[in-house]
């Protein structure tokens, strides 16, 4: 992906004894740790997923692809998939334009630009768990934002997080609040890399602000936009920490994501085979997306 790769000239050097010694001491620790805690578990997930196993003794009850069959027929899992999709849609249709718009405002010489950038980035630094809990309060029908509105209008308290039609919109709002600053910062970096003489020249030639944005700024931001989309999707696919404190997957299991589904239905019930099948499904989605996206959109970057 980087330009260094292409221009780096490999030193043609025979491995000396000193080189071998370095290699034998420097490389194995990382390889070992990676193999034991990343590569092996991922491979084992595929193996465990064809068993009905509670995690004790050896996996013996081979059931073929039945775990995957259960997944496809599971309404809660389907709902989780849809929820992950909703996060992606909102990230792309709301978060991306909002982050870009705000980035245009704070990348310029507006008073307090640096302060605003810091404020917008602040939620990204907080842990998802804390963000989820803060917003559980904010959405609380007895104490938070809804209580102010229902109180003023003299209505009965409204518990958004217990409303099975709308509870997931709370998750979407928290995701927006927490992650939009990160994407804004990517765009700020992109905007600051644009040569301003291009924009000045266009202005002198009579290009309007909209034309300058459409034909200069936007194309030059291309790599950053593609990157921002990539992180939006990858982040959406692994969302978990916000769900637990905010809704716990409820009400009526309407606000799970794939990972929270994996947690509540695989880990807490020690259904190792079934949970592994969820993990494999998530893995396939992540890998397919990562490879597909890079091949299609990020070739030139």
């Amino acid at each position: 992906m980087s330009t260094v790769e292409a221009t780096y000239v490999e030193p043609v050097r025979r491995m000396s004894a000193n080189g071998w010694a370095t290699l034998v001491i420097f490389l194995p620790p990382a390889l070992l740790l990676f193999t034991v805690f990343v590569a092996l578990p991922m491979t084992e997930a595929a193996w465990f997923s064809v068993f009905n196993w509670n995690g004790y003794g050896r996996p013996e009850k081979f059931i073929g692809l039945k775990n995957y069959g259960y997944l496809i027929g599971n309404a809660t899992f389907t709902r989780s998939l849809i929820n992950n999709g909703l996060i992606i849609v909102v990230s792309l249709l709301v978060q991306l334009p909002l982050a870009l718009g705000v980035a245009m405002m704070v990348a310029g010489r507006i008073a307090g630009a640096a302060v605003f950038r810091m404020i917008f980035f602040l939620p990204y630094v907080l842990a998802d768990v804390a963000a989820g809990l803060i917003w559980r309060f904010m959405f609380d029908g007895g104490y938070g934002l809804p209580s102010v509105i229902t109180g003023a209008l003299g209505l009965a308290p409204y518990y958004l997080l217990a409303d099975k039609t709308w509870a997931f919109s709370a998750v979407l709002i928290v995701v927006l609040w927490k992650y939009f600053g990160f994407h804004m910062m990517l765009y700020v970096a992109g905007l600051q890399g644009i040569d301003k003489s291009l924009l000045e020249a266009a202005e002198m030639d009579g290009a309007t602000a909209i034309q300058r944005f459409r034909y200069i700024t936007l194309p030059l931001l291309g790599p950053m936009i593609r990157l921002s989309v990539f992180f939006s999707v990858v982040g959406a696919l692994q969302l978990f920490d916000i769900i637990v404190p905010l809704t716990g997957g409820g009400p009526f299991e309407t606000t799970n994501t794939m990972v929270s589904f994996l947690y509540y239905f695989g880990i807490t019930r020690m259904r190792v085979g079934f949970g592994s099948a969820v993990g494999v499904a998530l893995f396939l989605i992540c890998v397919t997306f990562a490879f597909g996206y890079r091949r299609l959109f990020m070739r030139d970057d």
Partner: protein
Amino acid sequence: MTETALPLSETATAAHGPAGRAPRGFGAIAIFATLVVFGGIVLLPILATALNGFKELGDLQANPFGLPRVWVWKNYWDVLTGYRYWQVLGNSLLIAIMTVALTLALSSMAAFTFAHLRFFGDRYLFSYLQLGLLFPVATAILPLFIKIRDLGLLDSYWGVILPQVAFSLAMAILLLRTAFRQLPIELLDAAMMDGCGYFRYFFYITLPLSGPILSTVAVISFVASWNGYLLPLVVLNSESRYPWTLGLMGYQGQYMTSWQLVLAFITLTILPAIVMFLLAQRYIVAGLTAGAVKA
């Protein structure tokens, strides 16, 4: 896309501002007003959390977004004088520091071999380690749990630290190998000519010249570890070993209906992150975004 600087100061912005010139008059006022509104919306939940920690429950219910009628210091005082708060922060700090130290050590050594040594299968090994970038820890969490249990690391700090390091290696090695290769090759040639071996070159030249990228890697793995939730949730059982994310959830479970206490606890647990962010915002923003951009 390798060198996207993140100039954060006003002067740097002025020099490269994309608008060409500063917005003036009505436009500037409209932009400023929009930013104030957005900033207020972003800050509201954090400010409300901190302020509500000073209220009594009745006051909180009657007036959730105003200043406290009576400032109740007791909520905060009780958290600060209890053992639980310091215990969970201490655990998080211990886990995060060990994770960062091990990540830096293992990834810089591995990245060094990939940057400077040619050996049989080097490309395959590098690609193998890069597989870690493709999937989050959640995908393999069940087999990982079994592995940690079989290794006897369940309910121990190492059971959290080692997998965290393993999952941060891919990104760290990628960032460091690129940076190590950008050091002038003449340095290595000269050092080798003078009989300086790879070990000394690594410790006396590569590492001292790689401060910025090492701090980027440190920031990324520290923040990931400090904010981590799923892995400690699965691995740790004893409350005495809980990091603050688990401690916070436990506290909330215990005082569920006493929001003023929960909000005071939240405020104090997010305080270290906010203070660190304000003190070292340059490094943290650059680390978290430039790290993403460069990889």
